[in-house]
């Protein structure tokens, strides 16, 4: 297995990092958002389309309970966020998927709902999974208040002052979503409907639009409550503070198997990012503007690291290490030095190989950011129309080559060691959510999900051993249908090198938090705040333009937000 990050060369000038390096759990668990992250793509589309957000309905009482509708036009279609805010006793406020009530619930609606449609949604949206939805309902979501911070902001604004910057920096959001459902869940519209729409065709664009509008609602909600309390002394949120208030999100194990279940899609995401990185790496020199931008982003990343603190001891230790490395490496970006070397970005990336994985991934995200719009075309290739299909006519000789070329990482796992099968993934009967169990102490291993990719690969290799090279996959699978899934995955890898997480997901070393961070970074999340090794809080759209600012496009804080 190759551990060097520059092993694969796809073209003379375009050195892509090896999947053996990029797709390891520890490295994907160090992912940072990039310019290709989905919320960034959405902001650019909203800005270029001149999106204007209207609020045709605002029917909330003085305590902030009631209904609201936000509407915008994108790509020739109207979309509306229909928001419901309800009283919620503290004992019912839970981020867990087993919760049954929330402070707020939302539907992204296809069009502008009339009274009857709003009433239908009012009957169903607050019930979330227990409700039933239709083809005009595009995304379903819910969020709870960050109670103490919400109260602090409402109280401050009512008294005529701005919230404390320190508290704003610590929390960063008023509402925290605990689920954002799309693609046909509970009867809502299927993804292919959106895939045909200009502006929402990319991955998770409807979900990102929903969250961006929820953020707008949260700003308006807290101002409404504050104004109702003391209309004489109320002041609105200062623009720079409003911009720094994003939307929180609490994400658990349910998201982790997604990456393993969508190999083609995962490849497309990573391939786009790695192509962007390779393009930037191939630059022979950096002009003065790029050098200035590099230095500016370096400072911004350093400030972001200083403002990123978490309770999780393991991640906090990594953040502290990263802060130290970042300061230590400041001299690397000295303009005089970078002007004197050829291929300065490649030089920086090569030098980073001797730093932590966290440092390497932050630097990779930074140089992509430095390149600005140069790589924005890659965002168009990040969706996947469908996952790969089986190629039954492939000869076993070719299948064996793919196995050898792309699954060496799986063939060397020592499954005779109990530690390599210590965990198993399953679907809990309760709420039908994926969970991760300990094989020796929890029941259900006989019903485990097929996320044991490495073990399946080894099983396939064993059954292939005595089969003739000229036999077709069709003939082989007729006798061994249990290998159909893994054969399809292996065939996918031929054209999708980043389709597989190259680690054993059953191992006692497998931490689901790494899979969560990878996916959330592609969403554009920052301020990862793990609450265990299997769930995390994050912030979305912190530092991003608000509805009133969207015409101006991205802000400098869209990448890694900083409260200045």
């Amino acid at each position, binding site marked *: 297995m190759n551990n060097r990050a520059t092993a694969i060369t796809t073209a003379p000038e375009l050195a892509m990092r090896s999947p053996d390096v990029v797709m390891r759990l520890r490295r994907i668990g160090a992912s940072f958002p990039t310019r290709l992250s989905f919320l960034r793509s959405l902001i650019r589309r909203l800005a270029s389309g001149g999106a204007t957000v209207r609020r045709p309905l605002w029917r909330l009482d003085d305590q902030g309970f009631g209904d609201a509708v936000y509407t915008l036009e994108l790509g020739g279609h109207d979309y509306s966020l229909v928001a419901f805010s309800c009283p919620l006793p503290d004992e019912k406020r839970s981020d867990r998927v087993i919760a049954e009530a929330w402070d707020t619930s939302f539907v992204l609606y296809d069009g502008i709902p009339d009274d009857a449609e709003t009433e239908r949604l009012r009957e169903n949206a607050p019930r979330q999974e227990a409700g039933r939805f239709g083809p005009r309902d595009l995304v379903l979501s819910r969020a709870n208040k960050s*109670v103490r911070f919400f109260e602090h902001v409402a109280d401050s604004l009512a008294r005529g002052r701005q919230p404390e910057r320190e508290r704003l920096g610590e929390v960063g959001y008023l509402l925290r979503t605990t689920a954002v459902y799309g693609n046909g869940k509970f009867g809502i519209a299927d993804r292919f409907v959106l895939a045909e729409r200009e502006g929402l065709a990319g991955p998770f664009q409807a979900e990102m639009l929903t969250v961006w509008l929820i953020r707008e609602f949260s700003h308006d909600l807290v101002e409404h409550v504050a104004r109702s309390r003391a209309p004489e002394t109320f002041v609105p949120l200062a623009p720079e503070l409003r911009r720094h208030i994003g939307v929180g999100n609490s994400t658990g194990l349910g998201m982790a198997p997604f990456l393993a279940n969508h190999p083609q899609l995962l490849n497309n995401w990573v391939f786009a990012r790695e192509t962007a990185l390779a393009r930037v790496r191939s630059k022979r020199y950096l002009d003065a503007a790029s050098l200035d931008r590099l230095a500016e982003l370096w400072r911004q990343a350093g400030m972001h690291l200083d403002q990123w603190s978490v309770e999780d001891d393991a991640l906090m230790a990594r953040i502290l290490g990263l802060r130290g490395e970042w300061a230590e490496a400041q001299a690397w970006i000295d303009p005089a030095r970078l002007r004197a070397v050829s291929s300065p970005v490649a030089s920086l990336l090569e030098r980073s190989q001797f730093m932590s994985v966290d440092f390497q991934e932050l630097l990779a995200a930074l140089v992509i950011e430095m390149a600005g719009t140069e790589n924005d075309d890659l965002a168009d290739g990040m969706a996947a129309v469908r996952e790969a299909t089986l190629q039954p006519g492939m000869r076993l000789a070719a299948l064996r080559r793919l196995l050898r070329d792309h699954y060496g990482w799986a063939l060397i796992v020592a499954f005779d060691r109990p530690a390599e099968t210590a965990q198993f993934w399953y679907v809990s009967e309760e709420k039908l959510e994926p969970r991760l169990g*300990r094989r020796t102490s*929890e029941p259900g291993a006989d019903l485990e999900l097929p996320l044991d990719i490495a073990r399946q690969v080894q099983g396939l290799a064993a059954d292939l051993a005595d089969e003739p090279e000229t036999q077709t996959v069709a003939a082989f699978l007729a006798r061994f249908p249990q*290998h159909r899934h893994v054969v399809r995955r292996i065939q996918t890898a031929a054209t999708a090198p980043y389709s597989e997480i190259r680690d054993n997901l059953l191992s006692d070393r497998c931490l689901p938090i790494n899979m969560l961070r990878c996916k959330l970074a592609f969403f554009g999340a920052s301020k990862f705040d793990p609450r265990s090794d299997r769930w995390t809080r994050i912030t979305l759209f912190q530092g991003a333009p608000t509805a009133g600012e969207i015409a101006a496009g991205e802000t400098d804080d869209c990448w890694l937000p900083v409260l200045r």
Partner: protein
Amino acid sequence: MTTIQLSYNEVLTVARKAAGGAGLPHGVAEDVGEAAVWLSARGVDAVSIVVDALGSPAEILGAQAAIDALCCGETAEIAAEGWNCRLMLIGLAGAVAAGTEMNLAVRKAGNVEPLARMVTAEALVPSVVGLLLLPFADDGAPTPLRSHRPAATDAAAYAAALGLAAKTYVPASELSRARGAGAGTTDND
């Protein structure tokens, strides 16, 4: 008959999980899910077809193997006679035709109809003689999904499919709850 209106993703998911619950390997169950989507886009209550077909998992395995053999030229045609659930066979082939450039077609008395252009499936069952791979590329564009919603699903069949799917779920225990995401924290912060 009481029906329920599902999304395509719900049709796919419940069909795949039901196939898994009936004991089919995961890779085959994935194809059953895709077949259900293809059928349900062509006016067929696919969940009912899948539930019926899962009464004989061996036939689904046989159908999948026969279609694989057809796609790589190891057989020239699959005779429809002898298959108890021809719509399942056609659905599996239709999903392959939709996802690949394989120009699979059904032979009826007197003519051949490419699956990629088929807009309804249920009515053709009595007239289907066989499935074949046409030796030339179809020059017409595939027919897209005709509707943004699949055919309605019989509620009883849906319940049966959910029952099969439930065989793949692990009952919750105190331990699993305690080790679940988010456990043991307060969210009133």
